[in-house]
């Protein structure tokens, strides 16, 4: 059995027929070939698959593709606008907020919503905001600084 869905991903509209059990993350990676959204676990614990659905940060392994029918999705590939990096993308590069890069797209997408809700977070607020995302490389030290960089940039 397949179900038709229609959704907007990174500003482009797609229509597909998908199995009802297909996870949104599998739809993005396998059907749309947007492989910047990563899969790091099978328990919705690592946050590597975080994307924006209607502006909210969501772990795309917790949604079925059919649940995204009619939604507006942004993945890491859609974050830069007109070739200009998002302040968070820039922050991660400037402050060495990534090493292997695998958790990075999820971290950045989580931070997008974090700064949206709280444009001037304290270090503690940033650390709490990242609770749902694992990074095994950086010890989070420079991820915090990357987000502070973006917050300062957006302020100015």
């Amino acid at each position, binding site marked *: 059995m397949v179900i038709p869905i229609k959704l907007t991903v990174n500003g482009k509209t797609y229509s597909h027929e998908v*199995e009802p*059990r297909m996870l949104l993350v599998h739809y993005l*990676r396998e059907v749309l*070939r*947007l*492989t*910047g*959204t*990563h*899969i*790091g*676990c*099978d*328990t919705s*614990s*690592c946050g*590597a698959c975080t994307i924006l659905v209607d502006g909210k940060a969501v772990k795309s392994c917790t949604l079925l593709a059919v649940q995204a029918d009619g939604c507006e999705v942004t*993945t*890491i*590939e859609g*974050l*830069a606008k007109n070739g200009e*990096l998002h302040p968070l*993308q820039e922050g*991660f*590069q*400037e402050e*060495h907020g*990534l*090493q*292997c*890069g*695998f*958790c*990075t*797209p999820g971290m*950045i997408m989580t931070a997008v919503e974090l700064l949206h809700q709280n444009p001037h977070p304290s*270090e*503690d607020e*940033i*650390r*709490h905001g*990242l*609770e749902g*995302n*694992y*990074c*095994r*490389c*950086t*010890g*989070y*030290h*420079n*991820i*915090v600084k990357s987000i502070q960089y973006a917050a300062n940039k957006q302020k100015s």
Partner: protein
Amino acid sequence: MSKLIGKSVKRVEDKRFITGKGRYTDDIVLPEMTYAYIVRSPYAHARIKKVNTKEAEAINGVVTVFTGKDIQAAGINGVPCGWQVDFKNGDTMKEPPHPLLVADKVRYMGDAVAVVIAESYVIAKDAAELVEVDYDVLEAVVDASLAVKENAPQVHEEAPKNMAFDWGLGDKDKTDKAMAQAQHITTLNIINQRVIPNAIEPRSAIGQYEEAYDKYTLYTSSQNPHLIRLLMSAFVLGIPEHKVHVISPDVGGGFGSKIFHYTEEALVTWCAKQVKRPVKWTAERSESFLTDGQGRDHITKAEMGFDKEGNVVGLRVYTYANLGAYLSTFAPCVPTYLHGTLLQGLYTTPAIYVDVTGVFTNTTPVDAYRGAGRPEATYLLERLMDTAARELNMDPTELRLKNFIPPFDGLQQPGYQTQVALQYDSGNYHAVLERALEMIDYPSLRKEQQHALSQGRYVGIGFSTYIEACGIAPSAVVGALGARAGLYESAQVRVQPTGKVSVYVGSHSHGQGHETTFAQVVADKLGINLEDVEIVHGDSEAVAFGMGTYGSRSLAVGGSAIMKSIDKIIEKGSKIAAHKLEASEEDIAFEDGKWTVKGTDKSLSFADMALTAYVPHDYPAGLEPGMDFSSFYDPANFTYPYGAHIAVVEVDTDTGQVQLKRFIACDDVGNVINPMIVDGQIHGGIAQGVGQALFEVASYDENGQLTNGSYMDYTMPRADDLPSFEVDRKVTPCPHNPLGVKGAGEAGTIGSTPAVVNAVVDALSSLGVKDLQMPLTPENVWTAIQQAQSEH
């Protein structure tokens, strides 16, 4: 004109990662690709009576199913071990190979029994549920100290008492005598618990066989593609090495766990030939928990003897090292040559003996995990030091400073010969500790601690002063110690006709930032722009050869290979310049990216030299055209980074909750190419070491079931568990490699774990707590407090 070495250049590789354009193995889709799902044993120890694949094969979309019998019929023995450590009595190490699929007896939970290959991942997984395996469950053994007992279950029939090897290092008689004469002996019984590396990218492998070319390609999330090619082609599948192409594209973290040659790599490669289509396997996280090489797992009795002034007079260590069910690639080396040899630490201990028994159990294989052996050595030494200081009523920093090896640069003063085989290269151990003490303002901090205690708050300060051995070498020595491979590195530097430079390195970057650091070295030394250098790695056909990245070796060994090729370019360039500038070669100097005739303004630019080398119309007679040099570098010695780490914690004694308030590190990793990247390596290392101290443990029950094999159950540090770290460094160059570098990848992990545990013991010492076993979960800490109180 050193314009780039020592600068925090922003990483060139970041662009693809921050825009979602990284290319990890699971991102790759090949035409006609099929998907593998592996049926794994739910039991730790069981005989396979029957495997029925009929129902699975009948599912629409299933291509085929293979079992252990198919692998046996193909004559494939399994994955071998890469390091041999024999018994003390001369008997050969026991090394039963690890089958790609097991036909007779499974030996750990997760051992592979069958593989389903299908048109899609979901079909393969659905069908795998229909593979019926009839098991005869056997009693399992999990604890290494129990596995060596007479009546313990036997993991392998050919390994009596489950012993793979036993091993000793140092002067036993001298040490026993020193300990007998010691005024004070500090003893700790230590469980350095098993932890799981947990790179966030699960392992993945794609096998491909192209019949028309008789060519195999393996994409694999590995730290060392060339070694995988060698092991898989020559020792597992028996296929010609030159017909195997191994590619390790972007790899999402390794921490040691992606060094080893895994059964799945050979399995997908073999399957691809059988089904005549590419075969992809990607681990689910629960599979990673069960099958990635795990770390640590030592049961140790450690004793340190002191004279009445507090000088260390002897160290005696007995360890059972749990190796799991099979010997992973470097498993025997980790508890022996990477652990026993580090027991000198930073101290002048005159007598040391270490004894290690390597033991098979019904658990996942254990191998190198960030630090590999050195964290275990450091942990026992540094726990002993803080414990001894308490027992001797001395300050832990005073006790360390008193016993430190005096400073030596390895040039004017010789290297320091330890009691356990190694010769340290250079060091000023006092300097890092003194700097770390300055960073925390130690006297004030102790006062604050007293003040806190008077208010009923339990603050603790813990120390760790570590040394490690990186860039394990030279090949002849490691060969004598049992390595079945050389441990050199290769690098090819190719100057293109336009003066752009491509560098092909055998090191592999999976987060370390080689594409930036190596390019900084090349651009700096050749006097060209960073943008004009491209670093190529992770491809066995692009790169001539390589030994990969582990043991903090990439810059010390791989960087040195690059330096050798750069020297050859400058030398050949001088010949071309002498010809073009009509001067003798002795009068030519190379600086700032150009060759000049000394004392004149005549010069040849780097780009003009390159073009001349490839368009040799006006060219030195007898000189070969082209500008492309490959070099192999085999180091003269290990490198020895060291440092001082301090943890400050506060413990809630009502709940046992530990809060890490501050973490201070002053490390000396030799010269630094990119300070930003080195700091990042230290930060990440500290977090992993803190993880072992406070949170992480692979919990096996007595049946060999891993009871916490998911991110819901296995705790790793999250952002709000950690403070920002305070790091600084000292620089004592390595005297024996051209860049003077020592390695920074593992330092943080090695140093941090004992500092945190020492801090928690320090916090609770007024309550009578003398020792704690990791991880320091609230439950463990709370229980220790209750026990200490009831004994009071």
